């Protein structure tokens, strides 16, 4: 906190958003957001998942055009018709996910669009590689071979290269969206050093991170978003941690109800899901665990820990080489989701838009998708029986839709998630795997989904729940398994279950407090409980 950079309080903003609103179809993502970055300051943008940070960033960087409101740079209104315009205007961006081209060389990625040319107008290859090496050297990354394909480096290194690209564009404003989520401690230090240097040179930085420690260490001011609106704006130091977390979550949510913990008897464990030493790909390396009926088992892990890969392998989306997966006394065939489903396993994938709902079908058809065969007799769907099932499930899960006929694409994220859960419940699963079921849905729907999880377990289903939010795991799970680099790094039982113990297991040999953000999760929640 000693090395703060802010000094030019009175300087005019390098980039200012004025009353920016943005809506997609029926979803209002941003409502009259105003926000200003001054030269030489690091401005934190804080908020929960789904608060609208990413949308705001995409508006600032020209990827989305605002529905209303305007952007002003150094006193002049600007209009971006695409990211290219924003870059030309001096806005450099480092996105949350590395979005460079893996099949091209590091140098080509660094200079894509601004490649040095000879006087004949052709690319100057030698200069391209030389400039790239010099640039990497300047940012302390001289050991990276600029000729190697970007895709041959680990994610953290790719993220650093992405930062160098953003910083190298002589940007007046640098927008960094979760830049440290894939970095280790030493890489974070390098990144911070670069940010401080840029700020000292007068660049304005917009900084988004879930790691509160980072915000307090690096940032001068903070703007807090919740549900697409600005709910607080302050000098960083004037806002305490409790205050910040409260602003992010809203008062009501800070009180999380912890569901009573169950301990499954051995017999119920034997009847549930048993995963025995499966190996598959680099991110699933010998994982064993079991989930009893009536029990909620949380699965925690940082970005790249293999948590999604693990459940995909269990369900049969991916194959495995060794080990076995059993449900009760039935052995599931590897790489066969259909076999897992018929045995009574259900899987709610992480990305519901890509792998789950079919937006153009009705709520009814989406729910019945997995049971088409079962409600049909001689190939003819029994409509009235199906209708009863649909209505019952919609009521039980409190799906807010105008009726079974409404298109799923018109529902909110939380209600889409409920439709997906309903689809699986229609198959009467014994064990359900939920991959980050509350990601990106609003706070009300979140607690509804959490209570559905509890109810399912109370009715005798076994639940595996992945979550990036530690408080959610603590409140919903009976015990938590922690994954690190594709291996089981620890198990935390009901008695020891709190956020600190998960953080310790996640961090492993790293010092406590380093790198606790679970990808997009809520870290360092000193004030959350």
């Amino acid at each position, binding site marked *: 906190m000693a090395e703060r950079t802010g000094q030019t309080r009175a300087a005019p903003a390098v980039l200012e958003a004025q009353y920016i609103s943005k809506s997609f179809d029926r979803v209002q993502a941003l409502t009259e957001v105003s926000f200003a970055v001054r030269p030489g300051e690091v401005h934190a943008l804080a908020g929960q998942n789904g608060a609208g940070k990413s949308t705001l960033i995409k508006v600032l*960087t020209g*990827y989305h055009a605002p529905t209303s409101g305007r952007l002003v740079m150094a006193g002049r209104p600007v209009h971006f018709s*695409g*990211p*290219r315009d*924003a*870059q*030309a205007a001096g806005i450099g*961006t480092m*996105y949350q996910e590395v*979005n*460079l*081209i*893996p*099949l*091209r*060389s590091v140098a*080509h990625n660094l200079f*894509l*669009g601004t*490649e040095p*040319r000879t006087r004949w*107008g*052709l*690319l100057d*290859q030698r200069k391209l590689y030389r400039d790239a090496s010099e640039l990497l*050297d300047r940012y*302390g*990354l*001289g*050991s*990276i*071979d600029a*000729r*190697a*394909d970007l*895709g*041959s*480096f*680990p*994610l*953290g*290194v790719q993220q*650093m290269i992405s930062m160098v*690209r953003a910083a190298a564009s002589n940007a007046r404003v640098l927008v960094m969206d979760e830049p440290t989520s894939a970095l*280790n*401690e*030493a*890489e974070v*230090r*390098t990144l911070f*050093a670069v940010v401080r240097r840029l700020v000292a040179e007068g660049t304005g930085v917009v900084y988004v991170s879930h790691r509160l420690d980072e915000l307090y260490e690096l940032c001068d001011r903070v703007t807090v978003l919740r549900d697409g609106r600005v709910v607080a704006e302050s000098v960083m130091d004037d806002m305490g941690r409790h205050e910040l977390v409260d602003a992010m979550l809203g008062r009501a949510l800070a009180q999380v109800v912890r569901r009573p913990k169950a301990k499954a008897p051995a017999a119920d464990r034997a009847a549930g899901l048993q995963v025995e030493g499966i190996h598959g*790909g*680099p*991110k699933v390396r010998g994982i064993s665990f079991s989930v009893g009926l009536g029990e909620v088992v949380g699965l925690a892990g940082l970005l*790249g820990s293999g948590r999604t890969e693990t459940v995909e392998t269990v369900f049969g989306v991916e194959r495995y080489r060794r080990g076995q997966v059993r449900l009760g006394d039935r052995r599931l065939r590897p790489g066969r989701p259909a076999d897992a489903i018929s045995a009574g396993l259900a899987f709610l994938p992480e990305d519901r838009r890509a792998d789950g709902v079919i937006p153009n079908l009705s709520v009814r058809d989406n729910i019945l998708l997995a049971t088409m065969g079962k409600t049909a007799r001689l190939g003819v769907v029994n409509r009235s029986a199906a209708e009863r099932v649909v209505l019952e499930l919609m009521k039980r899960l409190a799906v807010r839709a105008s009726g079974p006929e409404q298109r799923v694409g018109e529902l909110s994220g939380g209600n889409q998630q409920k439709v997906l859960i309903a689809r699986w419940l229609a198959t009467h699963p014994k064990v359900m795997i939920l991959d980050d079921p509350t990601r990106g849905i609003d706070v009300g729907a979140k607690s509804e989904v959490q209570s559905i999880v509890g109810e399912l377990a109370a009715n005798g289903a076994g639940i595996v729940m992945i979550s990036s939010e530690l408080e959610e795991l603590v409140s919903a799970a009976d015990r938590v398994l922690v994954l690190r*680099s*594709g291996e089981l790094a620890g198990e935390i039982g009901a008695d020891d279950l709190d956020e600190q113990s998960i953080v310790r297991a996640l961090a492993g040999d790293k010092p406590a407090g380093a790198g606790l953000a679970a990808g997009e999760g809520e870290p360092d929640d000193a004030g959350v409980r």
Partner: protein
Amino acid sequence: MTSARNAGRGPRRGGPVWSRSGRDAASIARRLTPFVILALTVAVASSQVPNFLTVSNLSNVARQSSFIALIVLGQSLVLIYGGFDLSVGSLFALAGVLAADGSHVAWPLAFVLPVAAGVASGALNGYLIGRVKMAPFIVTLAELLGYSGLALAITGQGNVVSVHGGTFFTSLASGTVLGVDNVTVTMVLAFVAGAVVLNRTRYGAALFAVGGNADSARMLGVPVQRTVVVTYVISGALAAFAGALFAGFSASGQPTVGSGYELQSIAAAVVGGCALTGGVGTVSGPLAGALVLGVIQDFVNLDSQLNDYTQNIVYGVFIVVVVVLQKALLDRQQAMREARASHAEGAPLVPAAA
């Protein structure tokens, strides 16, 4: 690791070294595959046909291949950006007819007319696909049908149109320079230019970026739409130019020639190492792919026991084999990378002192 090599290089000392060449064994193998296949094809043909490996026959193969090779060049660029172009076959025929008609007015029109049509067609493709976001399949399929109908309509019932002979146009298309056919020289020049465009221009870099991940490319500020439009214009212009050249060479505009070239050109590009998923490719590989096509055709013509259908069967088999091979090599490359990346995960990139 490679620390010995880097020992004493100042700032690099101490930290793990991330110097690795992008050209590992699997990627080299992937690049070489088309040439190995070409060599194998030539070897088989020359072992079966006594006169295959003669200068006259080989120059015959090159001449015969040159027309479709020009189409393959454009098609490869389209594949690298991640699309494909089905309009090139019937555009080839339409261009031939336009060239023949144009030759009767004034010889430069024999080039200008068809190439202008090709550029216009490509611009239309680029607009509909790049800007209106229509599927390449639908747009170019519609043109495949439309142009072939247009070629038949212009010629009235599909008659062959003769080319006005004795002009610079016909002598360019059928002449030789230093004993090499002009059309072969044209093909070589076009591919050299293609290699320069692909590897040494910003457009080429953008092409790979768009094919690698169009969304990322847009966020990185690459002019995605413009890249797509330019690519279809190049493809259309090359197909039309090839059609005009063929009209001059054969002294006639034939409205039904070139049917099937659209798929053959995709096949040659794929055999040449372009991935249908985009982001990967060269121009030298597809040239080899086009020559493989020419060698098989020539072989079938020379061998009395084989008939025309054999050519397609052999080529079909090649495509399957090559695609399986390419996929296996790509997977292997990927697996090696992932293994390395996960192995290195724990190691810090930079010394903590940085």
